[in-house]
């Protein structure tokens, strides 16, 4: 019994240390500049939403939020549309060369992202996409390819063939079978893929930094970076900006934790 208490204490302590930067950020975001300049407190004495409101309106985080949302939604919807079709073909249909093609997609996993960064920027420039949202969305969709193809091919393969034959007997064509039989059956995998695409896209920083020039097109992480490298940034403002970025992700994580965790640990089982 005492052992259990000790274990709980240790875990609680470690959990607290692990969560401390987050708690510290929330606390800072809820303090006014005056309190912060006086050293700040972990539990705000005069909690206020003023810092958040100011960051949201005067520091353009509303605009950055819109940009991030547009890029994230487009990338996620695009990835789901493109790779659910591909996964269906790889997992449920037979055609010559499918193993080779599948292998090509998975092979991208072994090319470190950093080695593709430079030509990607030049390519954006050549295609006239440098500094645009599309220039982030298209490579973003492609970046999910290895994970998406593996995850969805496995999911589609796991759907019993009897379901397909039953749909055929009822006279459903390929499109109908895909939409009303297969898609509902692989829903958990689609949710997982949506999460594993949306969160990294929302957080993406490096490609945005090297390709976006006009502050009007900045995504949230870039807006935060811009704020922190400006002259004399206020600590509470930086934390409010961080909190704005983190809230949607933490909400997604809390509500869909199961799909997220299953996806992360399941994807590696291959």
């Amino acid at each position, binding site marked *: 019994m005492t052992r259990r208490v000790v274990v*709980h204490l240790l*875990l*609680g302590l*470690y*959990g*607290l240390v*692990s*969560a401390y*930067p*987050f708690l510290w950020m929330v606390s800072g975001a809820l303090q006014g500049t005056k309190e912060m300049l006086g050293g700040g407190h972990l539990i705000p004495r005069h909690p206020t939403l003023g810092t958040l409101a100011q960051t949201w309106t005067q520091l353009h985080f509303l605009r950055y939020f819109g940009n991030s949302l547009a890029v994230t939604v487009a990338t996620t919807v695009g990835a789901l549309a*493109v790779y659910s079709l*591909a996964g269906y*073909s790889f997992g449920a*249909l*037979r*055609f010559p060369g*499918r193993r080779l*093609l599948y292998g090509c997609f998975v092979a*991208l996993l*072994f*090319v*470190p992202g950093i*080695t*593709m*960064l*430079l*030509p*990607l920027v*030049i*390519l954006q420039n050549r295609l006239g996409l440098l500094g645009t949202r599309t220039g982030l969305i298209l*490579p973003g*969709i*492609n*970046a999910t*390819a290895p994970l998406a*193809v593996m995850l969805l091919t496995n999911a589609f393969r796991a759907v019993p063939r009897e379901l397909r034959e039953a749909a055929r007997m*009822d*006279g*459903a*064509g*390929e499109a109908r079978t895909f939409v009303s039989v297969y898609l509902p059956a692989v829903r958990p995998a689609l949710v997982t893929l949506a999460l594993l695409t949306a*969160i990294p896209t929302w*957080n*993406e*920083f*490096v490609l945005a930094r090297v390709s976006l020039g006009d502050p009007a097109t900045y995504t*949230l992480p*870039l807006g935060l970076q811009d704020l*922190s490298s400006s002259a004399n940034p206020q*600590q509470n403002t*930086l*934390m409010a900006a*961080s909190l704005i970025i*983190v809230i949607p*992700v*933490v909400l997604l994580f*809390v509500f869909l934790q199961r799909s997220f*965790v299953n996806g*992360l640990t399941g994807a*590696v089982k291959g």
Partner: protein
Amino acid sequence: MSSSTTCPFGTRRTRRWIPWLSVAVPSLGWLVFGLYPSLATVYYSFTTYSGLPGTPMTFCGLCNYRDMFTSNYSQLSQAVVTTLEYVGGVTVLQIGLGLGLALLLQRRRFGYGLYRALIFMPQVFSVTIVGVLFSLLLDPSSGPAEAVYHSVIGGYSSFLGDSNLAIWLIVLVNVWMFSGYTMLVYIAGLRRIPPEVYEAASLDGAGAIRRFWKITWPLLAPSTTVNVFLTVMGSLGEYALILVLTQGQYHTQTLGMFMFNTAFGVNPDLGLGSMLAMVQFVLTAVIGGVLLWALRRREVSL
């Protein structure tokens, strides 16, 4: 559902094209945003090119390779050493911590779900946030870390500005971010070990430590393979975290950071940067290959 012949993609002849149509778009993406950039990196590494719009790209053979392995060799070798220190530090700490946490948190008990979530959460933070938060936490004049350091150890430290310390602090930040993931993979592995194995060992009178080394550790080999491989590969390619914390200053210039600074720094040199990307690619491929081979062999022998 009525039987109909108007359903799209209905006939035998058109049906044959469906798989090809459905993989056409992702294949195009693969060619344009996957294969092309990979091959372009190889080509750029043989050119002199600043990367700035309007500047010429001139083919120069092995010039970048020659320069890097002669006059700039010390910079390159320093970057490789820093990379290996970083990878080694992250891997040892993250595997150790992840395994320890998994052993403690594998059971479904009251409150354990919360601990797991708290430990896992940093993974969903953007690196920019992590950069801002830790720069403030580790601020040498006003951060909370300074207060703790001053009262516990005494004296002052410049933390991320200290060339002996900075890389290890980034290692710790990396471990903080991703040890929850390592933990989850280990928990999944632990839950696949059948309880009967432990019961048999208990009957034989094996103690907890003996049970760990004789049963748990060998049976966890597949999870260890996954964790070690992903951690090594992930930390080898890590540069965003270093970029937001130190920009590669104070002895934190890993190979990836060196490449980033060369290609996008004050005097951008895309040719040289691409050459460094090639070194990064080769290093990753060699380490990844050897690692997979060694881990597989280990799994068989255990």
